[in-house]
């Protein structure tokens, strides 16, 4: 725990920053001394036709082998820890009737602009707060703060996505009110965030008309995981050769169950439908 701003540091220099903690909490550095050198050799390849599946999943050594040492069956999902934390986040949010939405897109698709507009338009109707994810800077948090909305910034350092532990820390710092909406703006990236459950109730992928209409086909895993796809920047269509039907077909191809809304976060097209989608999710 950092004494200056109360942020805590997990792996790889992730920082959780509450901009409202004041200027002194904003620009201090944290150094990590992990610059050690290492070298190691690998044994030549080996066969792995040994039989497994003997039911030992309890970490007890099985099959002693003088040449190879002991084999210990683990049989667990690699992301089990993340998924456990995500479930914990989900329970915490559900108990408080908080709708958490994971917003994902490539950099520049308009996530922050859509949030700014949404916060302003829904002011007084839906209590909203935001967890911002970026590798560096408080720039997005500053934009959200300017709307009067509560925000916590997560800087992932070298990290290319948010994970459940970061969001856990972000939610603790954010302390959102019950019966509210929390937007989690993921790191701009159409690849890595798809793999990490954060505990959200819904996943939204934003794509935009200044990107290729074939994005859903190029990044199928991301679009396959979406509950809702927003096609942003439709106000620019007259100036672009973007093929809307081709984009919609690509989304349908990858994820036939995803809802799709076309909108412009700057000019306002389609926003009424987006707000209705949110209202439906929040419930009465």
């Amino acid at each position, binding site marked *: 725990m950092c004494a200056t701003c109360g942020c805590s540091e997990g792996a790889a220099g992730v920082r959780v920053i509450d901009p409202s903690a004041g200027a002194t909490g904003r620009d201090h550095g944290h150094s990590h001394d992990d610059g050690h050198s290492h070298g190691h050799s690998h044994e030549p390849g080996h066969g792995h036709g040994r039989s497994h599946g003997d039911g030992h999943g309890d970490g007890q050594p099985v099959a002693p082998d003088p040449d190879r040492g002991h084999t210990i069956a683990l049989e667990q999902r690699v992301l089990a820890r993340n998924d456990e934390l995500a479930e914990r986040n989900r329970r915490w949010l559900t108990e408080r009737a908080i709708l958490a939405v994971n917003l994902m897109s490539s950099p520049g698709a308009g996530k922050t602009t859509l949030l700014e507009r949404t916060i302003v338009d829904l002011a007084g109707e839906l209590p909203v707060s935001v967890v911002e994810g970026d590798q560096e800077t408080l720039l997005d948090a500053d934009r959200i703060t300017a709307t009067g909305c509560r925000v916590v910034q997560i800087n992932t350092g070298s*990290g290319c996505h948010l994970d459940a532990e970061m969001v856990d820390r972000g939610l603790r710092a954010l302390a959102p009110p019950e019966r509210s909406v929390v937007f989690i703006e993921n790191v701009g990236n159409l690849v890595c965030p798809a793999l990490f459950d954060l505990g959200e109730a819904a996943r939204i992928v934003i794509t935009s008309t200044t990107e290729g209409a074939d994005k859903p086909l190029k990044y199928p895993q991301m679009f396959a995981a979406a509950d809702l796809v927003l096609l942003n920047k439709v106000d620019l269509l007259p100036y672009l050769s973007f093929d809307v039907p081709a984009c919609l077909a690509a989304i349908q191809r990858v994820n036939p169950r995803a809802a799709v809304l076309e909108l412009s976060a700057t000019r306002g097209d389609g926003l009424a439908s987006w707000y209705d989608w949110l209202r439906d999710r929040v419930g009465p």
Partner: protein
Amino acid sequence: MHELAITESIVAAVREKLGGTPVRLVRVEVGRLSGVVPDALRFCFEVATAGTPLEGAELDIIGQPGRGRCRDCGAEFDTDDWLALCDCGSADVEVLGGRELRIREVEVV
């Protein structure tokens, strides 16, 4: 480069089970539709294991084929493509398998 986070999860899970016991091989199952690139995983494994009881351990990656089911005709088939086409011509294919990311076992000295 989520493979670094993936390998860090592998190292953490192994250490949680085995503590400081030196490990010389980690065998993982990586589905071909998991979004994880085996070569990137190997590269990151070297970085993530440095200074840990897994340093120098071999990473044995067992690929698992993807599996799809056609929503139109119901046929099931192996595929390594997220955008698989069914033989019936339908592109409406549900991914059933191939997303596995599992630590199967480790070998200790």
